[in-house]
């Protein structure tokens, strides 16, 4: 099964709070890290796709219960509060790692820390 459009929108938004954009550099969304992660759910992380679907649906439901709108439509502060409530969840922490893996191996991540490829 594929992720639904809503789940994908939620993932992109949540990943962008794990590594947010700022003046200096893109976050997980604009760097392509989130898209890469979504692709991995049909590849190396396929075994976790169902868990992702459940997590993303739950995150979006919590957003609607707490604030009356989809997670992706909330303010950054509201999104952070919701994500923070998952701090103790093993799956959330796995998701955090997945976002970092993709971001720090992306061109944007390498550029941000000053890792230049010469040769």
């Amino acid at each position, binding site marked *: 099964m594929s992720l639904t459009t809503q789940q994908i929108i939620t993932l992109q938004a949540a990943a962008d709070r794990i590594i947010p954009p700022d003046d200096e550099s893109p976050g997980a969304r604009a760097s392509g890290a989130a898209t890469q992660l979504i692709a991995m759910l049909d590849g190396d992380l396929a075994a976790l796709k169902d868990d992702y679907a459940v997590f993303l649906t739950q995150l979006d439901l919590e957003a609607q219960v707490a604030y009356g709108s989809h997670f992706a439509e909330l303010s950054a502060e509201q999104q*952070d509060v919701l994500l923070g409530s998952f701090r103790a969840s093993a799956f959330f922490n796995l998701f955090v790692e997945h976002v970092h893996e993709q971001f720090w191996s992306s061109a944007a991540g390498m550029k*941000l820390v000053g890792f230049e490829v010469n040769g």
Partner: protein
Amino acid sequence: MKYDVIIIGAGAGGGVAAKVLTAAGKRVLLIERGRWLTFESTGRDHLRNQRMSLYGHNAGPSDDHPRVVELPNGQERVVLPWQEGYQANAAAVGGGTPVYGAQAWRFHPTDFKMATTYGVPEGSSLADWPIGYDDLAPYYEAVEHELGVCGDAGAMTHLPPYRRDYPMPPQPLTRPGALHRRGAAALGWSTVPVPLAINSVPYAGRPACIRCQHCVGFVCPVDAKNGAHNTFIAHAIASGKCDLITDAMVERVQMRDGHATGVSYFDAKGRRTLAEAEVVVVAAGAVETARLLLLSGITNDNIGRNLQGHVYVGAVGLFEAEVYDGLGPGVTTATTRWSHDNDGVVGGGMLADDFIVLPAIFWKRYLPPGAPRWGLAAKHWMRDHYRRCSEIKGPIQDIPSPQARVTLDPRVRDRWGLPVARLSGTTHPESIRTARFLHAKAVEWLKASGAVEVWGEPPAAPYLSGGQHQAGTCRMGHDPATSVVDAHCRVHGTDNLYIADGSVHVTNGGFNPFLTIMALAYRTAEGVTKRW
């Protein structure tokens, strides 16, 4: 046709053996389950390489080669080659050497005499080698020149004087390297430039290193890293006397009454084939060599025991100013001050600065406890710390245990129907005491180098070490009751079966092992040419 010698495994040891044997006029068949690697085919995927294999790796083996790992709690798991616990090195023409870090250390003279020097800790299988440093010195020298190693023999004052200096000068110093030299000097510790099988200047028709950032774990983009594939194996093939078959999985050594008649293998198309030879040399790496001997019906209870690699210790230092300079390979400066003669512990180890650390690896392995894990704080933490950190790390002299072991799994088979390797046990607990000792020295060094904060803990409990530095599973010795091969690396009870890889190491030195594997393979192959 019948070959003079069949060599199983075209890795560090097998490659050297192929060169020495063909140079002596022998007809050699070299069989390798992996393939030739190229820069293009291995790439620079930061999440799938031999340095960090989160989702795969770039130098094999493929998932046709699972293993079973027995956990300390008695549970077992089937693991794929890039997964934790597999103890992978690589599977390719050159074995681990096309992607290795190329630290080209000779072992310390005392590394060959561990039991005599320290006694045997209860429950460990610590033992002396049947040969010593002096026996290997001429072969170390031959390998350093034929392979191409850069370094400064004059600085290696922990060793007897070299007869010849390294063929190339050391790589220039990096910014972190310079800091660590000053730090060590302040402590009164001597340092040495790390010897590397990397061209610091053009050598033997190949160019100098271009100081790129993807050395360890990757294939060199300009072929300036010297491994078995582009030196010894290339020479063996150029001699016209060596047939190399890749993508071929050896099933077993064919034995008759203590005599090897040849080997059976499955070629790339899965066809089972027999090849005959006067002599068979097994060089499949410590785990697979033990497995092959067991599959071949050779009976000696020591086969597969004493699996060891290196328990590593390391600490990360944070410096006030940026220390990163982007100049690869990155490792420049070591101390051998703590290799031996340390109060209250068995052995010791070498400490050195590290290869350039990829940002994704930095995130996974270099964060201090308490660092922010997500949000802008985490992103900025990386931005503000990546270029200000430097690691000091090194291998300790593992204290072997007979319980750290390779056996044949009773149930799981690979795609050729062969029982896979089953791994169990851990290093001897004494290793952890030595690790704690060496870790404290790494911390001391970083502080002396100017680190304002230092983090990273030594291992808390013994674990199974093997992996890229795997060794010990077919140890040398005079007595078949306590060893697998004799002092010429011929398998006890056979007249023509030899081993030429890390599995014959009795102990694995407090240094990275490949140069010793190659030197010993050189000596073993020379012995074969004299006897056959």
